[in-house]
């Protein structure tokens, strides 16, 4: 009985410790190390064969140089600021695009809703990479959009959209739209129609009933959807690499490049630690709001 329980708890626990927490500690440690021309390409390495002296020696060699380096090189802090900026704007745009869709779904005839729901979920199961890629053919110089615009006579010269921040925004809104729609739809779907009827009965117009009743009551969905878009976008790597240009600075992309082309592991680790510090704030806020939400529903 007790062995079974120990086994049941132990196996997933040890797995997560070994493959999630320990790697994380390694990143933290390497971020405090120095780059070296060796394998592994950083120093110091922990040598337990020397016992306590080895441990002491190891800790005395750790420092914050990598973090100081990140401070001196404007590339990094520019990338942080730009990541946040892109995340904030794209979340806002996704909300503006997603809300009317979620609203339309919630107000659709009953027999349509399951189908509409499935149509939102379907892209979510489709490869992320392919969905981002599909825009490359549309936004390019000779792409579909430019051909269409020129054929319609709206522009004479093809627009440069691909490899700019505009393309990144389009890509983010496109790929993260289901994350915004689903929670808002869930909130709107729960909304009792008689509340709106009551508001109109008490003298609201249709529009003011929306602003005074529907919108405030769909707030939990808006909050959840915004966090679900905002958090992953900060560390996004695929979209800026494929749709963005050389001047698109996003921290996920920088980290990957720092790691794979420069092989500067300590700096890459320091970037990762700082990135984590940035996302931790919205993650904690999100969890708090979810808990409050769960509490309120009790």
């Amino acid at each position, binding site marked *: *009985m007790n062995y*079974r329980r120990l086994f*049941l*708890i132990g196996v*997933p*626990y040890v797995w*997560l*410790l070994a*493959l*999630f*927490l320990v790697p*994380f500690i390694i*990143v933290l440690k*390497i971020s405090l190390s120095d780059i070296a021309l060796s394998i*592994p390409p950083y120093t110091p390495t922990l040598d337990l064969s020397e016992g306590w002296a080895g441990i002491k020696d190891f800790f005395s060699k750790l420092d914050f140089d990598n973090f100081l380096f990140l401070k001196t090189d404007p590339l990094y802090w520019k990338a942080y600021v730009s990541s946040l900026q892109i995340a904030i704007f794209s979340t806002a745009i996704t909300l503006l*695009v997603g809300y*009317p*869709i979620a609203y*339309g*779904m919630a*107000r*659709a*005839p009953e027999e349509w809703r*399951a189908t*509409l729901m*499935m*149509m939102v*979920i*379907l892209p979510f*199961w*489709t*490869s*992320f*990479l*392919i*969905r981002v*890629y*599909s825009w*490359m*053919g549309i936004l*390019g110089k*000779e*792409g*579909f959009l*430019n*051909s269409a615009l020129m054929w319609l006579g709206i522009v004479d010269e093809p627009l440069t959209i691909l490899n700019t921040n505009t393309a990144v925004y389009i890509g983010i809104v*496109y790929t993260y739209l289901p994350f915004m*729609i689903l929670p808002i739809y869930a909130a709107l779907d729960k909304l009792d129609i008689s509340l709106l009827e009551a508001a109109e009965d008490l003298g609201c117009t249709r529009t003011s009933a929306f602003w005074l009743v529907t919108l405030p009551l769909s707030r939990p969905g808006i909050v959840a959807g915004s966090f679900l878009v905002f958090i992953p976008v900060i*560390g*996004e*790597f*695929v979209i800026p690499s*494929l749709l963005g240009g050389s001047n698109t600075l996003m921290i996920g992309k920088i*980290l*990957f490049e720092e790691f794979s082309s420069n092989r500067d592991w300590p700096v*890459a*680790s320091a970037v*990762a630690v700082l990135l984590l510090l940035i*996302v931790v704030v919205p993650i904690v806020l999100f*969890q708090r709001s979810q808990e409050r939400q769960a509490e309120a529903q009790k």
Partner: protein
Amino acid sequence: MRRFSWFNATSLTLGFAFLYLPMLILIIYSFNGGRNVAIWAGFSTKWYGELFRDQAFLDAAWVTLRVGLMSSTLATILGTMAAYVIVRGGRFKGRTVMSGMLYAPIVMPEVITGLSLLLLFIAIGLDRGLVTIVLAHTTFTMCFVSVVVSSRLVTFDQSLEEAALDLGCTPWDAFKSVTLPIIAPAVISGWLLAFTLSLDDLVLASFVSGPSSTTLPIKIFSAVRLGVSPKINALSTLMIAIVAIGVISASLINKRSVTKRLKDEQEAAAS
């Protein structure tokens, strides 16, 4: 019966056009005879033929499939165990740490997870290859499985398990003959989610794969970095078709069983 208002109809039409047009264009142009992606040069399936003759793509697909099957199965076992422990395990030391570790990989940027796993594999001297990708994907996707399964376990009437014990089952017997059959749909959808995530993953695989174990997303990524390729269009079309068939048939089956259940219940109440 309510109908679509013009506002809702417009927003839904525009919204779904936005969601589906890019994929539609991709699918249509995968049948384009010409190399140029924006100029239609007649219907042709030649890119599909080229795709199937490209050994590198076939190898990558095989690696991806093996990784997906192995990691999603492992992740389903571990994730189900974790969900069971968290929902049913009662209080134990480190429960908070465990649920934190289960939640974190879902919200953490994948670049961080990928980097940290790679540094671990190097630190313990594990060669990068199929095994490391499976380990990475299992860790990442078991968290999703655990979310799906635990949301089912939370609504699961615990007295069903107690009834099984009361009627003479050992705890393991009760899990096997009562709990598992009832939560099976959640376990299966957990497995499917894990499998899809594994097939789709680029970031983790880029960090932890070796030269001999290129997965399909890595192959696609390196190909499309250079620009649009009709071969990739063909590959994408195939992947979209598989997912669409899977999701649509799953939702149809689900809808049928729900309607049947509703009908049964109405009849039972009327009898």
